[in-house]
């Protein structure tokens, strides 16, 4: 009996993960992008009007080089061990921000949780 409950819990977690992933992947793109370093928004960019540009964001002596091109944004290079943020490529989903954990950098579409922040403040 207990074993069945455990198996059901596993199945429920898996189903929740699949549904959540689908929801995240299906969220549409937005135009405004926030670049957040160590919890503070350092730049807000409107991708629909932004000119192509390359800029760097620094945290604790390490920098991430961010590239804006043809209305898209990505991390071009990073001084961190894993380079996960670089491999994530262009920012595609409002629900999936680009994150560099070692350098505490986040690039996300602004509307995604701007509303929640506005309410909580």
């Amino acid at each position, binding site marked *: 009996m207990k074993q069945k409950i455990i198996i059901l819990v596993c199945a429920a977690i898996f189903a929740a993960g*699949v549904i959540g992933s689908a929801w995240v992947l299906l969220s549409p793109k937005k135009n405004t992008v926030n670049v957040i370093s160590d919890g503070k928004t350092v730049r807000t960019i409107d991708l629909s009007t932004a000119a192509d540009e390359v800029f760097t964001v620094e945290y604790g002596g390490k920098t991430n080089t961010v590239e804006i091109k043809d209305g898209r944004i990505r991390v071009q290079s990073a001084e961190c061990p894993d380079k996960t943020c670089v491999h994530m490529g262009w920012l595609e989903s409002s629900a999936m921000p680009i994150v560099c954990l070692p350098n505490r950098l986040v690039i996300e579409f602004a509307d995604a949780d701007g509303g929640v922040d506005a309410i909580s403040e």
Partner: protein
Amino acid sequence: MSVKRLARLGVLTALALIIFIVELQIPNPFPIPGIKLGLANIITVYALYRFRAGEVCMLVFVRVLLGAVFCGNLMALLYSACGAFLCLAGMIPLRRIIDEKHIWAAGVLGAVLHNTGQMAAALLVTKTPALLMYYPFLLVSGCLAGLFTGLCAQLVLARLAKSGIS
């Protein structure tokens, strides 16, 4: 603790570290922090069913610490330590409920708890609620990876029991 048990724990820890380091060489096709196979947890699950709670904690603690030292990413140490802590806190009571025919479920729950701990640590460190959007992907990958490592551990335990080695 007898010398024999201590020696076996040491060998298991070394084995887990070797698996951990070999796994680092496998390229990861998923560009999301926290997604990995976690093959070293085959050893953790095995130890969970053959050693006392304190001994399992020592094994995992040493493996996480030395693993972070060897792969040179001390930032990751914080995340994996939080994940390992939550995982152990959940699995040490649960191992009494999950019998040896369902060890794969222990793998799944352990992996999900590990991902949850990592996520909590990442949320606290970066103060970015948007990170939660990764959580569903971590759940799916955790279930699949945990199922795999759990099944491996289940097979190892069954084979060793059959051949008379505990």
